[in-house]
């Protein structure tokens, strides 16, 4: 604030230090025109938003579900053409054949049942994995030992394939759902912990300070400041973890097998693959895809809309 300049003699003195600048200040030839001064009496403003009529093409393009449907249709078409062109229905069935097998599996209830088994396992593993990831990252956020632990453990265990855990899982949990859960947690924990940790580290220092200022420490700081602020990173971690939980589940159901016909989608795929019903294999995979799309659009996109997008954190 240059308040004091007004009446300080020193100020005027200092100002001619830059005479070149001062000279140019006096309007002269070649200067911008000197216009009349105007004042407007302003009526109280009734600022109604302007109606904007968009052309229908634009409105069509603005419709996100429509655009996505178009993408899906295009993919289906490519698939169909590719399958027809390779003409090897044991390796790559057509889209139409897969759709038929999907419909049949759906109507007979078999696919639904298998999907339900897989989903229920998956959700359990996912939730457990999330809990473990948050425990680990919360620790890493508050102590240096936790940070070292996180970075060392993830670097060590994240690259390990599930089969590496098989002996341990069998020793501790035996055959069955618990071992599968163990493997699922392994799939969810590390990527989510990595993403969350990166998100935490990226929280603006001043937000962190504001939180600490109000007496938040440890877990409360994590819950009230770090998690909301790192939500975009966490969301991407959750998406990745979700996908990997699926991948792992499908693969692990083959290894751990099924107890008395209780197999899920992975088992369905495995069995049909062994019987060379490739269309059903693809129907099983399509089921995974459909669930993936549903979760993405119903859960993750919604979550994103009501949180980060609304907060203006993410565009």
């Amino acid at each position, binding site marked *: 604030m240059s308040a004091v300049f007004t009446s300080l003699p020193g100020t005027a003195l200092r100002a001619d230090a830059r005479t070149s600048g001062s000279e140019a200040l006096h309007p002269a030839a070649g200067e911008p025109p000197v216009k009349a001064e105007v004042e407007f009496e302003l009526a109280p403003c009734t600022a109604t938003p302007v109606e904007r009529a968009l052309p229908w093409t634009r409105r069509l393009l603005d419709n996100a579900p429509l655009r996505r449907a178009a993408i899906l249709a295009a993919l289906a078409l490519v698939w169909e053409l590719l399958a027809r062109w390779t003409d090897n229905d*044991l390796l790559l069935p057509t889209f139409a054949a897969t759709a038929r097998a999907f419909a049949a599996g759906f109507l007979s209830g078999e696919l639904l049942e298998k999907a339900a088994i897989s989903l229920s396992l998956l959700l359990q593993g996912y939730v457990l994995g999330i809990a473990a990831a948050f425990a680990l990252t919360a620790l890493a956020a508050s102590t240096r030992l936790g940070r070292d632990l996180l970075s060392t453990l993830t670097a060590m265990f994240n690259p390990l394939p599930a089969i590496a855990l098989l*002996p341990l899982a069998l020793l501790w949990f035996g*055959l069955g759902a618990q071992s599968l859960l163990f493997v699922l947690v392994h799939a969810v924990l590390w990527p989510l912990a990595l993403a969350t940790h990166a998100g935490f580290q990226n929280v603006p220092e001043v937000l962190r300070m504001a939180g600490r200022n109000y007496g938040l420490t440890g877990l409360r700081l994590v819950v009230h400041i770090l998690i909301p602020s790192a939500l975009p990173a966490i969301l991407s971690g959750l998406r990745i973890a979700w996908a990997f939980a699926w991948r792992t589940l499908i693969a692990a159901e*083959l*290894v751990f097998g099924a107890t008395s016909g209780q197999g899920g989608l992975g088992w369905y795929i495995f*069995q049909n*693959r062994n019987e*060379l019903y490739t269309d059903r294999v693809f129907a099983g995979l399509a089921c995974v895809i459909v669930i993936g799309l549903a979760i993405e659009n119903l859960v993750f996109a919604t979550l994103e809309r009501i949180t980060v997008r609304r907060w203006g954190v993410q565009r």
Partner: protein
Amino acid sequence: EGQIRIADQFGIVYLLLDVAKDQKLMEKHGKVQGLDIAVTQVTLSGGSAMNDALLSGSLDIAAAGVGPMLTLWDRTRGRQNVRGVASLGNFPYYLVSTNPAVKTIADFSEKDRIALPAVGVSVQSRILQMAAAKTWGDAQHAKLDKISVTLPHPEAAAAISKGGTEITAHFANPPFQEQELAANPAAHVVLKSYDVLGGPASATVLYTTEKFRSDNPKTYRAFTAALAEAAQWIAANPEAAAELFIRVNKSKVERKLVLDIVKSPEVQFKLTPQNTFALADFMHRVGAIKNKPASARDYFFDDPHNAGAN
């Protein structure tokens, strides 16, 4: 005692177990011994998962090829002492090729690709090595490994049936080999496992730890008795057995294909292991197992039905 957890894998080779389980034969024979047996059946996807489960104590009876059983016998000797319980029957493995130039294994060229499950380790791979050893001598037993590729049966079967890939041969198992031969007119059999092993041979065997057998003698007896009854029943009722397989496994394979296999003269459902020693001897010769078995009775338990094991 009173509880048995059995693993099987996927396929018709495990029909004996399916029958025993479906007709509650184990429970029935348990009653005879004065025992209520609780049977748990788990389906696993491969030999090593099977071994891990058995060793961890999550499983009482495992079922896999002769090869994995021999390996496990070798490694656990003097410790868990895993040995064979019984055979699940004799099944032939065919080496099927779509290359018309290949009549015997000696005709394979650099351009051919033989698909196998687990090159160098699986039963099919061992048999191929035995055949190679017979053709070119023991030192050359791994000669064909160079053109072998590891590929799961379904994909290999799809490749042979429809062509369009580099794979020109597949050492398969039932029912894939039958499906390939039916689907592709160019597909023909180059080698049969029976020719290499010296006659009809056990393909898949059941095995367990010494501890289980000695801790649960009654359950063990009930189990083998149930298997024996199941074998008899299948021999007597092949049609019903085929139906049972389709029902129990919720299989969608054509009934005719299943029936053809069950009825095939090359397939026998019996408990007594047959022609396993040749493989065991070969594996010892090439160093895959360190202990040299004197006879098949070394790696099978001393049970009445194993008396004639060879």
